[in-house]
């Protein structure tokens, strides 16, 4: 309860509070960049920066969707499996289209269209089961997580689904080519981030999400269509997963049971590192973007250096994640709270 009421209680010093909230993840990212650069100056080379941005696009785009779900008090554990499932089905559909009518731009566009429909549909199922069937989001999405993961394993016979060579050649540039020296996946990421930011901060939908996440009952009494808004957050999440898949498939042209494993945890971690509350009620799309960049940068730095034993990679990640969240929630905040009183 205290956390939920905290933003309201702190209204008088709002500007100051928001400043530090925003700055927390950013400070963590800057510290990480300095660390990366000092360990290996190549970290800030153009090629490496492009790599980090492109890689963070997958988790980042999914995490923007997750920001809405979590802000409205929900959770979606199915995103990683959903990505694998959509990628798999998309590849099957495109291979089928190549057999039926040959590989062309239309084949790829057809695959992309199907991916969007699948994403929205999968999101709707999660939302519908959560709101109408009144099953906890954790259980619904835990269930769909298992379903999508097994379906993709089943479609691939336990192996790997690979996109037919001709379609692959047409589709490949979507991941590998750039516009104004910025790769297409990064453009998609930027686009999703901007739309997400506007939706969260400048529309009634964003305010509804926060209201529902703070207190669902109060939101219901305030004439907010709670079920509809919550369902929309899952649809939005599905759409984001589908967009991430559209730029993921051309990278390796394949999907398997190993695709997207643990993406759900990375996406949720990016959201929380970015300053969104896991219990809902407060969402920050900008922070989520920084969270995704932090997660990707950690992996990249570990690959660029030899000083840390490979066996400890997970430990380093854990420490940095906890430290990043501490920067915005830890003793500074407690201190300021006392000062404000």
């Amino acid at each position, binding site marked *: 309860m205290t956390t939920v009421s905290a933003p309201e209680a702190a209204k008088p010093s709002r500007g100051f509070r928001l400043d530090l909230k925003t700055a927390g993840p950013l400070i963590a990212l800057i510290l990480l960049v300095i660390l990366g650069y000092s360990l290996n100056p190549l970290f800030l080379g153009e090629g490496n920066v492009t790599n980090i941005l492109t890689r963070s696009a997958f988790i980042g785009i999914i995490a923007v969707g997750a920001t809405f779900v979590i802000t409205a008090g929900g959770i979606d554990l199915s995103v990683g499996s959903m990505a694998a499932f959509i990628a798999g089905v998309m590849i099957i559909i495109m291979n089928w289209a190549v057999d039926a009518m040959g590989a062309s731009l239309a084949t790829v566009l057809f695959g992309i269209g199907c991916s969007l429909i699948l994403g929205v549909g999968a999101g709707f199922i999660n939302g519908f089961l959560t709101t109408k069937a009144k099953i906890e989001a954790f259980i619904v999405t835990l269930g769909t997580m298992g379903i999508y993961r097994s379906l993709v394993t089943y479609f691939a016979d336990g192996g*790997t689904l690979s996109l037919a060579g001709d379609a692959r050649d047409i589709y490949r540039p979507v991941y590998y080519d750039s516009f104004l020296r910025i790769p297409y996946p990064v453009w998609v990421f930027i686009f999703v981030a901007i739309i997400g930011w506007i939706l969260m901060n400048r529309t009634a939908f964003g305010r509804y999400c926060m209201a529902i996440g703070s207190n669902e009952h109060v939101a219901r009494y305030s004439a907010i269509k709670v079920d509809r808004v919550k369902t929309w957050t899952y649809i939005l999440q599905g759409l984001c997963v589908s967009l991430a898949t559209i730029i993921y498939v051309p990278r390796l042209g394949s999907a398997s049971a190993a695709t997207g494993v643990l993406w759900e945890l990375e996406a949720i971690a990016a959201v929380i590192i970015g300053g969104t509350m896991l219990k809902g009620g407060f969402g920050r799309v900008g922070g989520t973007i920084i969270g995704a960049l932090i997660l990707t940068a950690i992996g990249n730095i570990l690959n660029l250096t030899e000083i840390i034993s490979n066996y400890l990679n997970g430990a380093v990640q854990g420490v940095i994640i906890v430290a990043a969240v501490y920067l915005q929630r830890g003793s500074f905040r407690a201190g300021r709270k006392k000062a404000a009183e």
Partner: protein
Amino acid sequence: MSLKAIALGLLATSALVGGAVAQDEKITIGVSIPAATHGFMGGLNWHAAEAEKRLEAANPNIDLVIVTADGPEDQASDLEDLVSVQQIDALVVLPFESEPLTEPVRAVKDTGAFITVVDRGLTDPTIQDVYVSGNNTEMGVNSAEYMKTRLKEGDNIVILRGIPTVLDTERFDAFMGAIEGTGINVLDDEFANWNRDDGFEVMQDFLSRFPDIDGVWAQDDDITLGVVEAIKQAGRESEMFVVGGAGMKEIIKGVMDGDALVPVDVLYPPAQIATAMDVTVAHFTSNGPVTGSYILGSPLITQENAEAYYFPDSPF
């Protein structure tokens, strides 16, 4: 359907099964393997299913029951079910992990079943009647021997490892032992988790970090596919070559077609499960002795011999 009807149906089925056992000395062999969660295990599952079809067609009195597990605990439960429900006469098991499964397999052995252990050995080898395995040490050595034929003193290689396990360490140590003293520099090694995406990202980072790489030991074909994409993205195909491992059909096809970037592969056969099933069935059908250890070779697959290792229908 009423409960009564189901109960009647069950009774009828069990009566039929009972009759069959009485008529013909039916032999049930349980096969317990990890689920198809990645490429290699997918291939292993496929080969197990193929062997089941083939062996059951050839031996009408033999029934093979394949069960797949998601983890060591799950597999231990599977073993209990195989004993209590299927009443197996023999067990072919690829243990998820050696330590936790040693006692459950011993319990199966105590029921009088014939035990064949595949790939990952148990901590107590006296339990097994037959042991069939790929050879991680030879795999590492053969990869290194090939590297030595292509590289000279002062050349640089990078290594992408799998998941931190005994198996990975065996390969790695054997490889490092074999290139020792050749003057080939290992720039760095990182774990890529037997996964294409991780292979791609780790290789991207190696490429931005090291301007001069002459060879890549990816030691796994899934990792290799990711590595190849990263090298192509950087446009550095002509500078280096990649050595993978396992025997994935896409890679074998490339080797057959004379791919310069991935010129060879080193076998670590997912079909070893079929070998194990064959040997186990032979224990009941052949007049020759079968107990003992079968360590399969890890030969170098080159353009000349690739065709023999190509299974276009396998998912792996």
